[in-house]
């Protein structure tokens, strides 16, 4: 392996990844490449393994066999420091998971200060800039319990961005939100995509997939059945199960 790799090298490379929960095969020999700057949206029926796939990328879910390379490092190799790798991979959860004992701004500054050793003043300035970016600078000193779902999720996105990651993972970021709040979160994600962030998004928001995705991956029963640009996948789904899923959801 050469020390300097070409830019076109995939930043996420999953090779024949398998994951079982007891007798259930959550992931069956999944292979997936994501290049820097790409936006990949993963869709599929519930229980298809799409969340498991996403969570395996930063090893929140340990895989049984196969390899996952993130930014050139094999995360299944225990000699690689997973905590260092995770600092480069931001994650946004369905249930926000903000730290309730910290204010919005403190949620953003905790990890950069403790892990990247950034001085408080700098971390706070950066945190405020991110809160402004997600449109809730005025809530900086408010605790999460006083924020709406949409506001909480925007803080959660900003919290992940505060570590200045190379990749952002979104695990059904709008599924726990009231309908009127979905738009404000998607707007933030669209902005992020336009800025060139590498994104892997599990979602049921087909509008978002159409607008933002470079590729849409359809999963069912632990397998990737289709991996195409959104125009192609939505217009002419080739697999019957994709057709069935799209007809149910659209």
């Amino acid at each position, binding site marked *: 392996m050469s020390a300097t790799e070409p830019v076109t090298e995939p930043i996420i490379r999953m090779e024949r990844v398998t994951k079982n929960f007891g007798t259930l095969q959550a992931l069956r020999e999944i292979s997936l490449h994501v290049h820097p700057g790409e936006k990949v949206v993963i869709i599929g029926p519930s229980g298809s393994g799409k969340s498991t796939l996403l969570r395996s990328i*930063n090893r*929140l879910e340990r895989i049984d066999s196969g390899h996952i390379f993130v930014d050139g490092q094999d995360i299944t190799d225990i000699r690689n420091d997973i905590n260092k790798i995770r600092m480069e991979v*931001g*994650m946004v*959860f369905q249930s926000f998971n903000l*730290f309730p*004992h910290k204010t919005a701004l403190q949620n953003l500054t*905790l990890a950069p200060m403790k*892990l990247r050793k950034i001085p408080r003043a700098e971390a706070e300035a950066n945190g405020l800039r991110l809160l402004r970016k997600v449109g809730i600078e005025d809530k900086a000193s408010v605790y999460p319990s006083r924020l709406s779902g949409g506001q909480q999720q925007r803080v959660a996105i900003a919290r992940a961005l505060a570590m200045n990651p190379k990749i952002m993972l979104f695990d059904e970021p709008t599924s726990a939100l009231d309908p009127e709040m979905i738009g404000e979160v998607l707007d933030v994600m669209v902005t992020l995509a336009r800025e060139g962030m590498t994104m892997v998004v599990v979602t049921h928001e087909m509008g978002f997939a159409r607008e933002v995705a470079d590729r849409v991956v359809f999963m069912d029963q632990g397998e990737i059945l289709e991996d195409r640009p959104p125009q192609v996948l939505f217009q002419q789904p080739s697999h019957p199960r994709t057709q069935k899923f799209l007809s149910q959801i659209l």
Partner: protein
Amino acid sequence: MKEKSVINITDGAAIPLKKDPGLFSAWRIAFFGSLSVLAYLLLSRPKPYVDILKFLPDGILVTFQVTFCSIFFALFLGLITGIGRISRNRLINAIASTYVEVVRGIPLLVQLFYIYYALGRFVRVPDIVAAVIAMSFCYGAYMGEVFRAGIESIDKGQMEAARSLGFNPSQSMFYVILPQAWRTILPPVGNEFIALLKDTSLVSILAVADLLRRGREFASETFTYFETYTLIALIYLLITLILSKLVSIMEERLRYYERH
């Protein structure tokens, strides 16, 4: 007007009990009752009672020393045990769980004797040190269960969020989980503290000059057994009543914060 009530909390204003049981609460009867009895005894029969009381402060000091030292080490041991009990590492988990099972199955008095004499076979330590080791060992197991319950009460998404940012397991515990768990942990820790204080009376058997031991020394010289033990019981009662009041105030405050 909402803002005003928030300011009241940060000012540390007294927070009223949700339901005041009034003048005849059990605590008030016990507290003021024992205070009155104490005052009556000291004033009406100063001959044995004031003499006894003068003899006891050293013992009260030792009781508090043993209590505070033991609770300190028990909290430390409890934190490790609690984390060990939820560890996915089988060996660590087995060690922590076995420790808890063993300690819970042996009476504290037997543990005291055992550690005292087992320790004595290898090293010569002051009696009070042996007592603190034994008390800490026992209460560490109870505290372990308190910590385990507290940590388990935190949504597992919190740990995932911390880990996903790059915190390692102990950083996640320290910065994210424990600061949230202390609200659940603090009230039972307060109760364990009171139980521990009462149980320190057992160390008098190991020649540690605590409150009870000092009383026995006085009584056996002056043959005022009844008077001495009356006073000792009252002192223990007053101390634990005050402590339990502090714990319930603390619980009440925690609940108040949770609602806001």
